[in-house]
């Protein structure tokens, strides 16, 4: 049993109440049809003698008042405030009260206490029990029984006339005290029992509703706390990451500065500013210089990874003509290729495709792929080809080099991964950086090898979609 009254402003309850009110309006339309049908049937099929006109007048009144209720419900539908729930409750009370009055008047014109439809009061009190609080339900049940008793008494005592259902019951039945009393008592037992059962069930449901609501609130609060904690952690991580990149920048600078100084000192000597050097001395200095170059490249590459990850590319993005980007990337590489007797060919479309991207970073990718191709090719040629279709551009860098063993292909783009058949060259970060750059452009990069039957030849391909990829870029 519910010990708690419905909470004003309790939204699920209010919604339920409004739904129930509209159900009652719908039922009332059907009830009007039912009354008319029953009246006509009783009058003309069973030939029960009574006046149908008052019945139709009452039906007309019922229709008019139900239309008013229908409109009233529609007006309440849009709002969900405390005031509305009160109004809905009042409206429910008035509706039941009116229904009881209409039923009583209808009964009066159709045989009063002798009409078996007198037990329809049970439906009204059940409706009240569903719609309203327990107290109101009992109030209305008492009113219902009172109305029935009053009707019976008034007719019995002759204060108002009695309309007899001629041909259905004897015209003296309404004046038999035993009959009248037993009908009223039966009616009272039925209505109070039904009210008791219905309010108990409705109260239980209301309790459940409240519990569900409470649980939902709790869950939502927990979810919110969880979300707050989580977003706080994400913010911390981001901050941590930014701090790490800053730290890395400082460390890289401090590592790089002495190397730059050493490199400069070596070139000072190598280029003869500190006096003549013989060939052997030059050779040793050049070896030192090359190793320092390698270190400088490693430092730059190491810094590239967090910078790309932090979304630096976003700031560099612009509309870029790819033919130009490729030509810039290959500057100087043709000389390197020529030194190794390799043929370097470039195939570009007549009209340069334009994409949204970072010119500097894409140059870095193409230079990296071409450099690798030159490094791992001892004879033959390297071809760089740019093609486009409606959706994307595609760059193929093909070589006739030593090829890549198939077991190395899956981890080729991982940090510090080198083919198992090659000597150590470069920082080991080039392809991993290239992959990050292409992904930041929303594209794909992969390798195919071998191309020839003897295991030689490899091809590196990347594609970049043509449309602006703001969403994808911001994810990186």
């Amino acid at each position: 049993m519910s010990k708690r009254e419905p909470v004003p402003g309790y939204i699920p309850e209010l919604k339920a109440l409004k739904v129930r009110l509209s159900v009652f309006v719908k039922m009332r339309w059907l009830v009007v049809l039912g009354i008319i049908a029953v009246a006509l049937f009783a009058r003309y099929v069973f030939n029960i003698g009574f006046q149908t006109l008052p019945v139709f007048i009452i039906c007309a009144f019922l229709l008019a008042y139900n239309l008013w209720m229908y409109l009233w419900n529609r007006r309440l539908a849009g709002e969900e405030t405390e005031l509305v729930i009160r109004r809905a409750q009042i409206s429910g009370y008035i509706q039941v009260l009116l229904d009881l009055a209409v039923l009583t008047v209808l009964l009066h014109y159709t045989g009063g206490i002798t009409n078996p439809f007198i037990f329809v009061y049970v439906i009204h009190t059940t409706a009240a029990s569903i719609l309203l609080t327990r107290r109101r339900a009992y109030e209305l049940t008492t009113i219902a029984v009172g109305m029935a008793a009053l009707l019976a008494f008034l007719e019995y005592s002759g204060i108002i006339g009695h309309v007899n259902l001629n041909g259905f019951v004897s015209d003296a039945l309404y004046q038999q005290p035993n009959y009248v009393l037993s009908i009223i008592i039966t009616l009272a037992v039925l209505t109070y029992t039904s009210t008791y059962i219905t309010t108990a069930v409705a109260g239980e449901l209301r309790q459940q509703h409240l519990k569900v609501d409470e649980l939902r609130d709790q869950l939502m609060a927990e979810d919110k706390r969880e979300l707050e904690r989580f977003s706080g952690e994400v913010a911390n991580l981001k901050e941590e990451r930014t701090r790490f990149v800053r730290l890395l920048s400082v460390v890289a600078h401090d590592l790089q500065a002495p190397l730059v100084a050493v490199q400069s000192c070596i070139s000072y000597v190598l280029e003869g500013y500190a006096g003549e050097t013989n060939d052997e001395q030059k050779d040793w200095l050049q070896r030192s210089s090359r190793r320092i170059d390698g270190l400088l490249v490693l430092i730059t590459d190491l810094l590239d990874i967090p910078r790309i990850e932090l979304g630096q590319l976003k700031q560099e993005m612009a509309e870029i003509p790819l033919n130009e980007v490729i030509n810039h990337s290959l500057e100087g590489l043709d000389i390197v290729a020529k030194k190794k007797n390799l043929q370097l060919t470039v195939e570009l479309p007549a009209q340069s495709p334009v994409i949204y991207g970072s010119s500097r970073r894409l140059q870095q990718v193409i230079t990296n792929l071409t450099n690798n191709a030159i490094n791992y090719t001892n004879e033959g040629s390297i071809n760089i080809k740019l093609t486009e279709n409606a959706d994307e551009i595609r760059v193929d860098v093909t070589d006739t080099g030593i090829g890549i063993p198939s077991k190395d292909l899956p981890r080729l783009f991982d940090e510090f991964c080198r083919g198992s058949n090659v000597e150590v060259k470069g920082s080991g970060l080039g392809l991993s950086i290239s992959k990050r750059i292409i992904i930041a452009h929303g594209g794909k990069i992969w390798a195919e090898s071998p191309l020839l039957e003897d295991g030689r030849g490899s091809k590196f391909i990347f594609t970049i979609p043509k449309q602006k990829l703001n969403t994808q870029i911001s994810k990186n």
Partner: protein
Amino acid sequence: MAKILVIDDDADLSAVMKGVLDREGYIVIVAANGKEGLAQARKEKPDLILLDVMMPVMDGFLFADEFNRDMAIAKIPVVAITSYVESPLGQPVPFDVAEYVSKPIKPKDLVALAKKYIKTDAKKN
């Protein structure tokens, strides 16, 4: 004689630059930070300034900022000699200089750079 002001906190680097440019017949003045560099620029009115970016006391950005506001010296070409790692997020910071050159700079490139900005001496050499 054309004057070149080298602003760099790395004494070895400045020594190398001074050595190379001395040999080419330039007068080289060395400053260890932006503040010193600014003083020297105002005093010596050099023909070219080679500027490091990350320096203690006053870095290259602050130097360029103050330098560009001083009309007496603002017309002197400034070349920033910097490395990729020095810009905090790898971004070329909007930095009002004639040119960026990346470190380490080779002696012959340094000479070419000087000749590019100091035309009169290029003819003499």
